[in-house]
């Protein structure tokens, strides 16, 4: 029983993508990681100055760091290697098969196979034990799915196993993203960066982002957690719910945006311009804009590989009378899946559904409501919009936090 509780605890810690960054260790562990990182990045900087492509060093260092990261979480090294082998084989084999013929059944077979590890993990976690869990599985699965889809499309025509391997083990984004795309990543690692560009763009911006990331995560998020979030009493009084909602939302932002900045900055130093994940999300004017500012790589991924494709299929097959109905349906499906991706717990599903419905309602409101049409260029009205959006979003995070299941 104790053993199961320990596993549940570990898995819980795992599934909360806030804590899954691997950087959230004891103070000693965090500093050790930073030290190792600094040492490991120095050769990368040297290579950049010498105008040498960093990819070979990058793979070496990624393998080393990946081993460290996965080892630090004390769980899943075997699964990590198994997963890597599985996905690399799947993608290489499918790339070969696809060159011979474009078969939809084969496509779905490979697609499902690539998602199986993640599904097994999430299902087993819900049942209370761990199967196939390792740091980064949720994020690496996106990379696999994305590649299989683009191989089917014909957008990716050939795969080098070495660059495929690098795409997967690239350590800055290993644990929690941002989620990159194979073609974009591949272009970056093969690009010859001039010394001038490296010293005026990649290096200073990389360092700046790392410093910002450290500030957000190890200072701001740490302070919010220590002096606010964890001081809120456990009973669910109205005041406590209120306080928890904002505390959690700010903590989540600074912790995750901090990690993301750190990841992006580190990858810049390695010559890869990993896309940003956040851009002033709490200043969003409506829910649609929010999803272009929060966990951007995730929402773009779901937008390109799920929402847009579902909507296009609906429209091609003329399943809906109006394009808006098609879009609304696709949005709810997409957001629900996004919730599901976080985990099979009811509050993740509710979170997804919540945002799906919000997107539908807010779009309908903005298209049909005379009050909106009359005032949308009014500054005061826009401020109210931002305020309302902020609160709606924070309530969503409250659901997401699992607060109501405690």
């Amino acid at each position, binding site marked *: 029983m104790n053993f199961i509780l320990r596993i549940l605890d570990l898995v819980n810690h795992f599934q909360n993508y806030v804590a899954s960054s691997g950087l959230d260790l004891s103070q000693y562990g965090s500093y050790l990681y930073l030290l190792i990182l600094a040492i490991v990045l120095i050769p990368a900087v040297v290579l950049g100055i010498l105008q040498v492509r960093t990819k070979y060093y990058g793979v070496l260092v990624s393998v080393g760091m990946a081993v460290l990261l996965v080892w630090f979480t004390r769980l899943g090294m075997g699964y990590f290697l198994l997963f890597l082998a599985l996905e690399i084989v799947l993608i290489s084999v499918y790339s070969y098969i696809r060159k011979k013929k474009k078969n939809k059944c084969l496509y779905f077979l490979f697609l499902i196979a690539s998602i199986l590890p993640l599904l097994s993990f999430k299902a087993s976690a819900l049942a209370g034990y761990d199967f196939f869990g390792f740091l980064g599985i949720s994020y690496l699965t996106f990379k696999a799915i994305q590649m299989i*889809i*683009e191989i089917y*499309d014909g*957008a990716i025509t050939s795969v080098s196993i070495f660059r495929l391997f690098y795409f997967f083990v690239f350590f800055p984004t290993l644990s929690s993203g941002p989620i990159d*795309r194979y073609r974009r990543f591949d272009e970056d690692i093969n690009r010859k960066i001039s010394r001038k560009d490296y010293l005026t763009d990649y290096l200073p911006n990389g360092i700046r982002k790392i410093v910002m990331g450290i500030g957000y995560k190890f200072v701001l998020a740490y302070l919010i957690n220590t002096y606010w979030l964890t001081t809120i009493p456990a009973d669910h009084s109205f005041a406590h719910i209120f306080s928890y909602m904002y505390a959690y939302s700010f903590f989540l932002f600074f912790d995750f945006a901090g990690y993301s900045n750190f990841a992006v900055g580190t990858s810049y130093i390695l010559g890869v311009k990993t896309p940003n994940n956040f851009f002033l999300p709490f200043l969003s004017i409506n829910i*649609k804009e929010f999803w272009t500012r929060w966990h951007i790589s995730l929402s773009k991924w779901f*937008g*390109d*590989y799920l*929402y*847009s*494709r579902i*909507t*296009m299929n609906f*429209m*091609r097959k003329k399943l809906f009378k109006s*394009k*808006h109905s098609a*879009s609304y349906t696709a949005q709810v499906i997409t957001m629900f899946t996004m919730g599901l991706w976080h985990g099979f717990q009811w509050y993740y599903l509710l979170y997804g559904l919540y945002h799906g419905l919000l997107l539908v309602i807010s779009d309908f409101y903005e298209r049909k409501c005379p009050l909106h049409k009359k005032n949308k260029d009014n500054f005061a009205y826009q401020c109210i919009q931002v305020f309302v959006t902020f609160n709606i979003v924070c309530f969503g995070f409250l659901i997401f936090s699992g607060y109501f299941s405690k």
Partner: protein
Amino acid sequence: MKEKIIAILEDVCESTDIRDNPDVDLFEAGLLDSLGIVSLLIELETSFGLQLEPTDVDRKQISSVDNIVAFLKSKGCN
């Protein structure tokens, strides 16, 4: 071809702004959102006999009438 595209965009964006100003950046002017992009791709599919997926195009390629013309030409359309 340019005329065809302007007509498609008028329909998709539900706006005559494009006819009045054919060089407008569709994204900056807020004329195209994600549903708009999907609708546009569908129209281009049916009008020019293409098969398009959302990840086959990046935003820049469809951000203006001229860019769309260039994109279609690169796909071998007339």
